[in-house]
């Protein structure tokens, strides 16, 4: 993807080893993050040159028979061919699928919903009959490394900007029929996003690991671990990329570093989201 000369490769690797990266950052520093929230349930996040958009749409649906008291959430990511020509046609499908799967794993918790960033029970309207289907769509517009963290942040911002209309259920409906529901146009319930975790990807280059790698740095990686951490400091999901094996103790160390970094990122994001929403209201 990125063509680098031997010299450039050495420069990047050497910089990382000396804790001074090519753009002047330290190993565990993020690039400037900017968050912009748009109309109901959408957000744009820029991390350096990486730019993603996330949008949340809610539709009424029927809950699964295996979990009648829960709503459903689906996450789909698309890579726009504007980001790189190889995502033309079906070319972006592989990466899109991988990102979608990683985000589902990091945000939606286990099978029973334990550790999920989104409380699925809160999406239920009438048990077994009606619930909200939440569709989270992500679009990658510009790629310069660390897409997963950016998408995670964008989804968090979009969710905090999502209002779910209040629903009144006609109580008279007989039990075996689909109840009539009335979706309010005026009253919205704000989505609770305190539990939504942030995703921190640690990229291992040489013997060290860095956060928020650029495309150039990612091309030099041996492996990368993405940890999703919530406000309590609990791990809500983890995926690994890259073929090279890691010693178990290194994995544990990366998890603890990820946890540490996540706190800063979480605070940074929260203030950015608050600022973005404030500007929205001003307008």
């Amino acid at each position, binding site marked *: 993807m990125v063509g680098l000369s031997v010299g450039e490769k050495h420069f990047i690797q050497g910089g990382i080893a000396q804790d001074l990266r090519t753009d002047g950052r330290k190993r565990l520093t993020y690039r400037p993050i900017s968050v912009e929230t748009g109309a109901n349930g959408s957000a744009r996040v820029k991390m350096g040159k990486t730019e993603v958009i996330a949008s949340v749409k809610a539709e009424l649906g029927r809950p699964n028979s295996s979990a009648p008291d829960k709503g459903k959430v689906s996450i789909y990511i*698309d890579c*726009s061919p504007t980001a790189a020509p190889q995502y033309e046609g079906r070319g972006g499908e592989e990466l899109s699928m991988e990102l979608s799967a990683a985000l589902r794993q990091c945000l939606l918790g286990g099978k029973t919903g334990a550790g999920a960033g989104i409380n699925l029970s809160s999406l239920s309207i009438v048990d077994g009959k009606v619930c909200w289907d939440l569709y989270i769509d992500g679009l990658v*517009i510009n790629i310069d490394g660390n897409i997963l963290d950016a998408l995670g942040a964008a989804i968090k911002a979009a969710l905090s900007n999502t209002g779910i209309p209040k629903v009144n259920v006609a109580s008279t409906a007989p039990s075996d029929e689909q109840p009539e529901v009335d979706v309010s146009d005026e009253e919205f319930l704000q989505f609770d996003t305190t539990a939504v975790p942030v995703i921190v990807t640690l990229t291992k280059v040489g013997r060290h690991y860095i956060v928020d790698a650029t495309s150039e740095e990612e091309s030099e990686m041996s492996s990368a671990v993405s940890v999703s951490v919530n406000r309590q400091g609990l791990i809500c999901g983890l995926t690994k990329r890259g073929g090279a094996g890691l010693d178990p103790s290194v994995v544990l160390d990366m998890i603890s570093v990820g946890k540490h970094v996540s706190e800063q990122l979480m605070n940074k994001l929260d203030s950015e989201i608050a600022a973005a929403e404030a500007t929205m209201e001003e307008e």
Partner: protein
Amino acid sequence: MEYVSPEGLRLDGRRPLEMRQLRAELGAVSRADGSAVFEMGNTKVIAAVYGPREVQQRSQQLNDKALIRCEYTMANFSTGDRMRKPKGDRRSTEISLVIRQTMEACILTHLMPRSQIDIFVQVLQADGGTRSACINAATLALADAGIPMRDLVTSCSAGYLNSTALLDLNYVEDSAGGPDVTVGILPKLDKVTLLQMDAKLPMDIFENVMQLATEGCKAVANYIREVLIENTKQLENRRGV
């Protein structure tokens, strides 16, 4: 349904001959050779240009001119109802073709033989007139990429509802089922490169509507020219010229 009120106002408060707010920005995608965001009211598209570069598929290589390729994609969240269409449905393919043919007509392809230029257009918000917006964005992106062109291509649509010619239809007006004339022109040469209409319209009215759309194209051209000049000035400033 009433699309033009007795006071002569349209649903979104515009006058029949009024265009929506235009906004354009160059260099939205850092990795592309040229890119632009173009907004017409609530319609928002990004265009990115890659090339001229080596032809990826040898069999497509043209020995006397550049190969122009174009792909049009819509984001899942771009429309009011969430859609999940497979990539490359018929509508996208058709619009990709329209954009490609329009841009091919103005790029000086013979200057870049055996090479390839990719134009990717991504719709972020669709509110009518995506075709026009895509062409305008593509023009800007091509100019940003420094690709030699005969002239800028600009496009605008016009329609005819409630016995009134309307400039730059939005989604509600577009889906009213009336005629929708999309025109693309080369403003300096004063030539039409694109003309699409899929409804019946009497000849004299059609001429009016097309005239209106052409005027719209010229307005877009003026705006695009301003944006490009502004961008060039900034570049000059940065270089300290």
